[in-house]
């Protein structure tokens, strides 16, 4: 516990120290804010121009979450299907690996071709980015059911659905929630990529425009917002994971609650 607190304090110091060092180095070497703005300038820009940035932030969060929700839903369905049936797993796996190894930036032009620039390609890119980790984790979770437990269920004449519902799905939950953390970060990346390539809204687009007009503090302000949003999304899903699947992390913090 004590060492835990010390570790947290050390991490906080590292983060804080990083920004202080950045600030001091920029001041010491008189770096122009067109090259590298100081953190204080970035935060100032962020505050002053927040009203103008807000619609872009909203757009990015909106496309990310929409793509994430759709992607996770599709991912769960596919994951349950291929985790449930050995045949489906063997048949579908090579194709899934193939799809997942396509760099996702490469699909943005295709989405733009069909749906035009704007919200739809961003949502779709976020969606395709987050499907794969969910599929793999859910399928793995289902496939790791202990054979003895399955024997117990079979001697009780449980149907395959009974086994899936009472054993398979709960067992897959920790894997599923672990994948959500990864998936939400990936769909965020997907939607920002799509915005930088083809959109007139969103933080990605804002940063492209700002960099075109050498408004470097604004570019960095966009980056800070992205970092903050990424951390927030990751943190939210970590919390959900810890709460829902505490049994899988037994004996550490949840013991003897």
């Amino acid at each position, binding site marked *: 516990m004590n060492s835990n607190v010390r570790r947290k304090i050390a991490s906080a110091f590292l983060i804080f120290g990083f920004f202080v060092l950045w600030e001091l180095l920029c001041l010491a070497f008189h770096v122009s804010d067109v090259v590298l703005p100081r953190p204080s300038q970035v935060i100032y820009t962020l505050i002053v121009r927040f009203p103008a940035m807000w619609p872009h932030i909203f757009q990015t969060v909106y496309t990310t979450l929409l793509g994430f929700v759709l992607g996770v839903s599709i991912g769960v369905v596919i994951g349950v299907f291929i985790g449930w049936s050995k045949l489906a797993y063997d048949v579908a796996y090579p194709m899934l690996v193939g799809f997942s190894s396509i760099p996702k930036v490469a699909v943005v032009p295709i989405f733009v071709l069909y749906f035009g620039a704007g919200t739809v390609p961003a949502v779709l890119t976020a969606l395709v980015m987050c499907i794969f980790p969910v599929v793999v984790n859910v399928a793995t979770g289902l496939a790791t059911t202990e054979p003895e*437990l399955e024997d117990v*269920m079979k*001697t009780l004449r449980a149907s395959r659905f009974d086994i899936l519902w*009472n054993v398979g799905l709960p067992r897959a939950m920790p894997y599923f929630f672990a994948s959500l953390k990864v998936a939400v970060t990936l769909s965020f990346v997907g939607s920002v990529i799509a915005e930088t390539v083809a959109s007139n809204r969103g933080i990605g687009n804002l940063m492209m425009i700002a960099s075109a007009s050498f408004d470097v503090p604004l570019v960095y302000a966009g980056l800070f917002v992205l970092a903050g949003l990424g951390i927030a999304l990751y943190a939210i899903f970590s919390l959900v994971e810890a709460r829902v699947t505490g*049994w899988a992390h037994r*004996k550490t913090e949840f013991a003897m609650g």
Partner: protein
Amino acid sequence: MSTVVKFANPSPADTGSDPEQPQISHADSFVELEDVTVTYGRGKNVVRALDTTTLRVKAGDFVALVGPSGCGKSTILKLVGHLIGASSGYVYVAGREVGAEPVRIGMAFQNPTLLPWLKIRDNVMLPLKIVPPFRGEYRTKRKTEFRDRCDALLKQVGLDGFGDKYPWQLSGGMLQRASLCRALIHDPQLLLLDEPFGALDQFTREELWAIMQELWMTRKPTVLLVTHDLREAGYLANRICVMRARPGQIIDDSQIEFPRPRTMAMTYEPEFVALNQRLRELIVEARGAPAASAIPEATP
């Protein structure tokens, strides 16, 4: 439940018993294996796990299967639990071909296999959620009748008050008790135990033997117990079948007549020790038997 005598003639003559009428069987046996063989693999890699075995177990009997590893003890349990099929021969349970009619079966393994996300009580009640007569009533009765039933059973095995704990909060011996409760909660006609006490320390094991004996004496299910421990077999079983490996076969079948309830002290009496020694010699012989017996060793 167990059938009334329809046609009791356990002569080897009717081994082929009409596939058309599998329900006609030897009704005084609850479990019956008739010239059953089980082979795994095919072609050159074929492994004969069980070789023409015939075994009849009366309803309410307690039979222990002992023998060296790989002799097909667990294969017999799997056959009876309808987890695998026989390569040839017939398996009857409750007078019907196995799987033809729902028989309530409880099963416990060396590994307690409780579900980590459920409390002990919900783990124990899992069969009630699945098995037909209880299944339909589970939603309405799980907070009342079923819960009381579960708590009574937990109390009987010495887990009073542990219903609300999670599996990781319990020791290995306690988990195994809970696992026995799960195997018994739906009042099974048949109990299949695959080395359930194998992973426990000596004292916990002996405690659980006493509990097991009590559970069996109060409920009288038909029990098939697979074990490596000869004292365990002698203490618990009415009948001990010794098996040998490659090919798996029953080579000795003895009735154990010690009066019930048996005590731990009994296991150190001369007759008991003599029994143990005889069984031990049989197994040593079965293990040491040169591979010249019947089938040539089939290695990949």
